[in-house]
């Protein structure tokens, strides 16, 4: 029985990115700015986006021929961990995943949109047609030159310059590259996302599409599947960062709040769960970094898949545990909107479902480990 590699390493790029990301996120995303964006329509700051583009982050894993840096997608782990830590939300994750899907399609039709992304276009993938992350079947279809179908939970759909729409054409999977501007507001319905740092829409698509917008090819199903797994890993990284801040916020409170004449952090009823959260964070970090080391821009290995399932399963549970306890341990304060604990708990409720919940990932993991 083989649970997969346990190697872990840190590349030069990762070290540099780690410093850069920590610095930039701290600078761009004070908690006041996070809160100021919560009730805005856009949910992010265009200037911040431009800073990320300037850092070259949109093109990090895009081949050099399309204007990117050609690094491993695993390098993003360090960036999203930092973004999670500062609750800095932008369309970067959606864009990175769109680029991943395009790149993994290995089709020449993907080159133009990849170049656009490397140059700073925002993009997203319409992964879902229902609440079911584990259902790969598709209702959307290309028929007589039109793309027809309904997509739900499309992250950053309002901001995206390009929306990648998986659909069927004569029964075969294709990816349709749709310009955001070609979808009118009447076809869009904004979701009320519980994690108010995020934006998503449902889309009712009924559009004319030309042949040049359609990416066809044998490997698309695998590319889509791998992109979801990478999405799971990036969410795991981001949520691990958020869990760190969540725990820090809680620990700060435990060190300052007194009840019954003692600092509440001296009570084991709060102290020991804080340790359990710390340990869960340590696990999440180890699994996320190890998965990053297994990433490659070729097909994902069995060990890479194993690692992504593990990372997402553990990280989801970690942030939910941390967020839930953060509210509880802040007492009455935790029950207020003003207290940051709720930001992390709401983040957790988004994280746990994104790209599949822990039980679903463990189910796939079990197949890889026990049935091979």
């Amino acid at each position, binding site marked *: 029985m083989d649970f997969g590699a346990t190697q872990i390493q840190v590349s030069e790029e990762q070290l540099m990115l780690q410093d850069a990301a920590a610095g930039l996120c701290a600078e761009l995303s004070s908690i006041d700015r996070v809160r100021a964006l919560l009730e805005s329509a856009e949910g992010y700051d265009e200037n911040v986006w431009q800073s990320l583009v300037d850092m070259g982050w949109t093109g990090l894993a895009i081949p050099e021929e399309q204007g990117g840096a050609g690094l491993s997608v695993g390098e993003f782990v360090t960036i999203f961990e930092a973004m999670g830590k500062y609750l800095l939300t932008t369309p970067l994750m959606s864009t990175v995943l769109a680029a991943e899907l395009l790149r993994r399609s290995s089709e020449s039709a993907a080159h133009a949109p990849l170049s656009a992304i490397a140059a700073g276009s925002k993009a997203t993938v319409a992964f879902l047609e229902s609440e079911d992350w584990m*259902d790969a079947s598709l209702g959307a279809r290309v028929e007589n030159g039109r793309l027809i179908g309904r997509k739900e939970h499309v992250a950053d759909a309002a901001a995206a310059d390009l929306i990648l729409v998986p659909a069927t054409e004569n029964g075969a999977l294709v990816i349709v590259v749709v310009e955001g501007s070609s979808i009118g507001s009447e076809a869009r319905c904004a979701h*009320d*996302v519980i994690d108010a740092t995020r934006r998503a829409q*449902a889309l009712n698509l009924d559009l004319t599409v030309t042949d040049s917008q359609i990416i066809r090819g044998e490997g698309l199903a695998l590319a889509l599947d791998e992109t979801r797994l990478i999405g799971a890993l990036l969410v795991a990284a981001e949520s691990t960062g958020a869990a760190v801040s969540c725990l820090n916020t809680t620990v700060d409170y435990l060190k300052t709040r007194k009840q019954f004449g003692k600092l509440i952090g001296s*009570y084991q009823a709060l102290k020991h769960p804080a340790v359990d959260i710390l340990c869960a964070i340590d696990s999440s970090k180890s699994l996320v970094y190890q998965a990053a080391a297994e990433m490659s821009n070729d097909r994902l290995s069995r060990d890479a898949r194993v690692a992504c399932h593990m990372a997402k399963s553990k990280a989801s549970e970690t942030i939910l545990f941390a967020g839930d306890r953060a509210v509880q341990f802040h007492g*009455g304060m935790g029950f207020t909107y*003003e*207290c940051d604990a709720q930001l992390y708990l709401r983040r957790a*409720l988004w994280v746990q*479902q994104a790209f599949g919940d822990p039980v679903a990932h463990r189910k796939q993991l079990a197949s890889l480990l026990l049935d091979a």
Partner: protein
Amino acid sequence: MATEQQLANFREEVAGWLQANKPADPGFLLPQSFMEVGSEQQLDFLREWQYKLWSAGYLGMAWASEYGGQGAEPIFQSIANKEMARAGVPIAFNVIGLGWAGPLINDLGTPEEKSKYLKGILTGEDIWCQGFSEPDHGSDLGSAQCRAVRDGDEYVINGTKIWTTMGNYAKYMILLARTNPDAERKYDGLSFFLSPMQVPGIDPQPIRKLTGEYGFTQTYFNDARIPASCLMGEEGQGWLLAMKTLQYERGAEAGAAGGLSFIRIALEDMIESLQGIKRGGEPVLKDPVVRDELMQLVIEDKALSVGDKRSVISALTHDYRGSLPLSNKYRWTEHARRMRQAAVRLQGAHGSLYVKDEQAVGGGFWQRAYLQSFSATIGGGTSQVQANIIAEHVLGLPK
């Protein structure tokens, strides 16, 4: 005493009335509990509903008719309450009046206090709030610092209360304040007031809750002067009266005027809410791992329900006397938190939607219910404090 038949008839009558009079969905969010009344719109709606309930004779049934009640046996009110929960009607929102201040005044108030306060509580005209907790003494009521100083025919109040339900809408507050800071036992320095709210120097500031909604205020007292007649009982009896007040939570049997404080959020409904949800193309309710988790919740739910009945049968509580009533709050509230968290967790991608989303399962009911659940695991003594109490009082473990 009423016969079984009379009770059965009454049950049928209430059920029928509720069926016929249950208000239609108003098109805006209704509070799941009395701690969520955050808009005038909600207030108007709920006031009208409470008035209707009272007019029909289903509130304050056990109170004397001269004070707006009906002098009936408490069992009738219990039946009415149960039917309200079953019918899924809105809450009887004036809960601090109906369930805290009202029963206290009814039991221990002077005839003047009864005349002045009781009827307005039932009709919903006079909204009541409570001023027990303070910002620095969350679970530790006995340390309340809010000061009340006698000055002629008035008391001058200074300090801050927090978690004042509907503080911004209330006409009266039950207020726990310190009249004697030098008392040997800190509990003896506290007094209990039936205080007006519309008084200069009383400033209730709405608190936004983690759900994004309102419902509480933080109430500031700056040299607020209230009539000395607002003192209930005598100076120094504050702790006693506050503890007595907290005992009315058990409902009609304890003398409360009835109605729902919380809408029923049942595990059955949670499982129902998952009917349409799929995972991997299959109904999530067919997933063996989910089923196992649900059965764990069902078992706890059933154990708690049965436990409530067992707690009154002496022969079946021989091992740990007192454990069932003492652990009741701890267990039900923690169970509710877990159950509601699971409800959201099992919705797949829809779990990420909130209350303004048309596609949210049940209008985001479970998301809201989960976030709201912390009011019960924190308020009224955190779960951690509850566990201490159980350990010390039932198991005799040292402090």
